[in-house]
């Protein structure tokens, strides 16, 4: 199993060599164009998610927020997500927020947790959990039942995670300062695994993204993601589900990694029904497994850029 140079096929070298004389911004914009998307500068809309475990009636909370000058609009592709249309002050400084009645969570980032089936009473791994937006969403979807094991290796962000859990009154989570690449040391099996991977991110909402990122970063992150995938598959129960997501637009961290997982980790891509386009199966002249189209790619617009898919162990033929 080649964990480190999967994306480095001859065509990739050729493509990267051709583009290496360009500025970083032109380089990435050209790649997006080759992938079928024309670059445009965007500012994603602010979104919140209602923590239903702490709210008796959503309509009453919406009315309450309206009464203090926060106008919201339902996000069509999410159950508990709302766009912030108008607010007289920061939505992160209301008592409703501080009481954990809602979380500020980017709209596309709310998708992955919704893809799991039957979360209540399950044992769930949140492998790269900090700062905890999706951990709280998992606990909310589980109605605080079962158990979530949340891991991260960034200690400062783990403090933010602990604060989120306390603020949102999460009761079913254990947090460890631990590397997802060593998860089998926990000697536990998981029904559901959320792999919201550390990634290169995307330019939407980060003005300096093009200045900070190079293709080397992308390749390094892609290799790290494959290591995490390979390790976490070991602790997935036979009937378990993995949801893999990144906020990267780069195919090395998305379609190519899932293609690799399908071919090397005995995983299959599950059909999902959520916001986003079908993922790419032809990436820079490399033909991927046809099942990769069941993954979803979200190009930046109202939301940030995003990629998500659901994986299960391959069923015996």
């Amino acid at each position: 199993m080649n964990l480190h140079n999967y994306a480095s096929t001859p065509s990739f070298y050729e493509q990267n060599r051709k583009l290496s004389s360009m500025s970083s911004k032109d380089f990435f914009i050209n790649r997006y164009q080759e992938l079928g998307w024309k670059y445009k500068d965007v500012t994603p809309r602010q979104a919140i998610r209602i923590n239903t475990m702490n709210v008796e009636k959503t309509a009453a909370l919406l009315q309450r927020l309206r009464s203090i000058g926060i106008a919201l609009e339902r996000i069509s592709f999410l159950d508990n997500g709302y766009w912030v249309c108008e607010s007289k002050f920061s939505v992160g400084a209301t008592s409703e927020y501080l009481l954990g009645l809602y979380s500020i969570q980017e709209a596309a980032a709310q998708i992955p947790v919704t893809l799991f089936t039957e979360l209540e009473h399950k044992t769930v791994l949140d492998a790269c959990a900090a700062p905890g937006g999706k951990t709280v969403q998992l606990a909310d979807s589980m109605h605080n039942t079962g158990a979530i094991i949340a891991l991260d290796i960034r200690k400062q962000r783990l403090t933010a995670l602990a604060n989120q859990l306390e603020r949102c009154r999460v009761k079913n989570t254990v947090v460890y300062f631990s590397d997802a690449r060593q998860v089998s040391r926990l000697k536990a099996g998981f029904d559901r695994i959320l792999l919201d991977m550390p990634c290169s991110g995307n330019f939407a909402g980060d003005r300096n993204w093009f200045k900070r990122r190079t293709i080397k970063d992308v390749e390094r992150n892609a290799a790290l993601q494959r290591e995490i995938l390979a390790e976490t598959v070991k602790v997935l129960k036979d009937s378990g589900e993995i949801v893999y997501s990144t906020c990267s637009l780069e195919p090395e961290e998305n379609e190519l990694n899932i293609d690799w997982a399908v071919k090397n980790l005995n995983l299959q891509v599950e059909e999902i029904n959520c916001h986003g386009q079908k993922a790419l199966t032809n990436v820079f002249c490399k033909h991927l497994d046809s099942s990769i189209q069941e993954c979803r790619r979200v190009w930046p617009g109202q939301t940030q850029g995003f990629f998500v898919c659901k994986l299960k162990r391959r069923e015996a033929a």
Partner: protein
Amino acid sequence: MEPIDDFARRFGTSISLDETFIVKKQDRYFLLNRDLKQIAANDFLYAGTYLGKAKGGKFFPSFNLLSMIAQKRANKITIARKAEWLFICGRDVFKQGITKVTGSTKKDDHVLVLNSYGECLGFGKILCNLDKKRRGLAVENIMDIGDFLRREK
């Protein structure tokens, strides 16, 4: 658990938590559920419901614990929306901002501070007899949920 019981008594109430599910990790207390109790290893950073921290002879409660105590018959005041905003900014409570008092009104007693929806915003200490006072500072802010914002700085 002594520090937790002692703390609840300050509000004229008691709280009964199943001690077999309380885990003390260094100076911090966590309440686990049955699933977590089975699965949690010793080296966790956070688990279940955080209850608070005992340090230097003092107990620093979590907001979860305050909310649990607030569900009991305890010393409480309810405050108006404007006073609520000032309170979560760390300010003391004026008598004019208090809309309801439950339990003790005596100087130096501790009270939970609730908003008009009955949600616990923190706690404080009564500065003067609430029965007699008409205007001016009434409850000193000891801890409020604005702490979540202040922690991030």
